């Protein structure tokens, strides 16, 4: 079984976001991590590989700055890594790079995260699948593979759905699929010698661009209500905020 796990490099979840001139993230002091959902996908791929055999390749589209996190994915247990040396300017561009590599190398399962926590697009997985004309199971909370068939559970509006699909396919991972692992010392040592191949991008268009950023408007100061006068809160919610 050949897995491809797509990882994106994002600010740590506790980052206080600041923008430089409203043109983009101010990276000063920002710690970058593997997108949490991608780690969930990676761990599930490793679990299945350990049980059934196969290989797990991680793929990142982006600059050399992400290499520490690519090495971390290798330390967690991926066999090898590919970095497409290009700015990940929009989801379509990224998906074109991933689909191109996937077509060349032929993977059985391509996994991404449910969404990246920087751009929150939830786009790349479906785009890869459409570019390759294969199915995509999005927001999957479970993944099991037996032979050439996979059974997944996914979130749908109003509940969950269990589906089956033949290989190859794309899935985007949601919490529940696995519990991320912390790399151990041996993993960290061996990661240094695992192959990390850097390839140049194929030509692809960017069809969207984030042109300006700003912080959400600051909240007005919180109105405090005495715990001895709880009904005042209900009055305010009814008459002032008009939400009940």
């Amino acid at each position, binding site marked *: 079984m050949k897995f491809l796990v797509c990882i994106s490099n994002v600010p740590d979840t506790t980052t206080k976001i600041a923008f430089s001139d409203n043109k983009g993230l101010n990276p000063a002091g920002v710690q970058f991590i593997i997108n949490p959902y991608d780690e969930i996908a990676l761990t599930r791929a490793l679990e299945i590989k350990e049980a059934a055999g196969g290989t797990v390749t991680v793929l990142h589209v982006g600059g050399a700055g992400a290499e520490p996190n690519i090495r971390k994915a290798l330390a967690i247990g991926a066999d090898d890594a590919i970095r497409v040396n290009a700015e990940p300017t929009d989801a379509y561009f990224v998906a074109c790079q991933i689909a191109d590599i996937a077509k060349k190398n032929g993977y059985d399962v391509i996994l991404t995260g449910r969404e990246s926590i920087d751009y929150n697009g939830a786009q790349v997985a479906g785009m890869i699948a459409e570019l390759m004309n294969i199915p995509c199971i999005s927001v999957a909370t479970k993944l099991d593979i037996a032979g050439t068939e996979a059974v997944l559970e996914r979130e749908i509006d109003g509940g969950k759905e269990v589906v089956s699909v033949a290989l190859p396919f794309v899935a985007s991972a949601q919490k529940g699929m696995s519990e991320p692992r912390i790399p151990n010392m041996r993993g960290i040592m061996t990661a240094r010698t695992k192959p990390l191949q850097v390839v140049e991008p194929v030509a692809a268009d960017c069809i969207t*661009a984030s042109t300006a950023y700003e912080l959400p408007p600051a909240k007005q100061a919180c109105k405090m209500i005495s715990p001895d006068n709880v009904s005042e809160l209900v009055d305010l919610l009814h008459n002032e905020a008009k939400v009940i």
Partner: protein
Amino acid sequence: MSVLVFAENWEGRFKKSTYEAVSYAAEIARQLNTSCTAVVIGAVSEEDKKGLGKYGATKVLSVANDKLKNLEAGVYTHILGDAAKSVGATHVVISFTYTGKAIAPRLSVRLKAGLVSGAIALPTSLSPFTVRKKCYSGKGLTDVVISSEIKMVAITPNSYKVNTGGADAAVEVFSPAIPDGEFKVVSKEVKKTSGKIALTEAELVVSAGRGMKGPENWGMIEQLAEALGAATACSKPVADMGWRPHHEHVGQTGITIGPNLYIAIGISGAIQHLAGVSSSKVIVVINSDKEAPFFKAADYGIVGDAFSVVPQLVEAVKKLKAAHN
């Protein structure tokens, strides 16, 4: 030029998010001086289909087929792609629901249309086509410009008000040929979340955290939710400890919601929790610690013991409801 909107249904019924998407698409059509066509896939009553006119659709393309009961993103993409071509769509609108998340990126590739997913308002400009969305899990906002000929927007539920007042829409049967080979995903089981209000669609949400001490104390939380007609939610540790089901967990790693009212009880307000709820229009925080970070993100706050405040709140809400019935 024309605007196409996917009018999603759940078991034959439209949801509020569908009416929002249709209203949003119709408003873009109005600004562009063109028409808005809605696509309905699956069995929905004629009445309801015509009724999309009320929200501004002038035409409804209705696709019904026994095999279309469950979401098959590839097939839905095929249908919507054909519909877009048949009406010469230049703008496509879809809800940013789980269904929308499955379809929108595929459709965007098929139409080679730039996609803004999770839009929170009408385009700030039609040329260049610019739409605002949240980024960094709600910690930032960004304006995205689409440069492709066709533009796609996936609109966040509960972020656009429904318009009403339009006349009935004309319903047309639309039946693109879909080869059997395109059905690749087999639905084995649908597990519905039990009868209560679905969290992602709820306008009012009552949420509680570790401050509740244990699952046995959730009775008052449920009573408050019931008195308000709200859905219930919880913080991550509460779901992890098994006090509440996982589908109630909101935040960075859980569900993202944007209800009109979010009441947080015994939740500290960690940044990862806020990431999932910061789009709520009004936030109420009840916490015994006046230094709890959640107060910084709140509109109304009570520093107090949940075990005494919440029962009083339940009574006050019941009184209000009784007075208005």
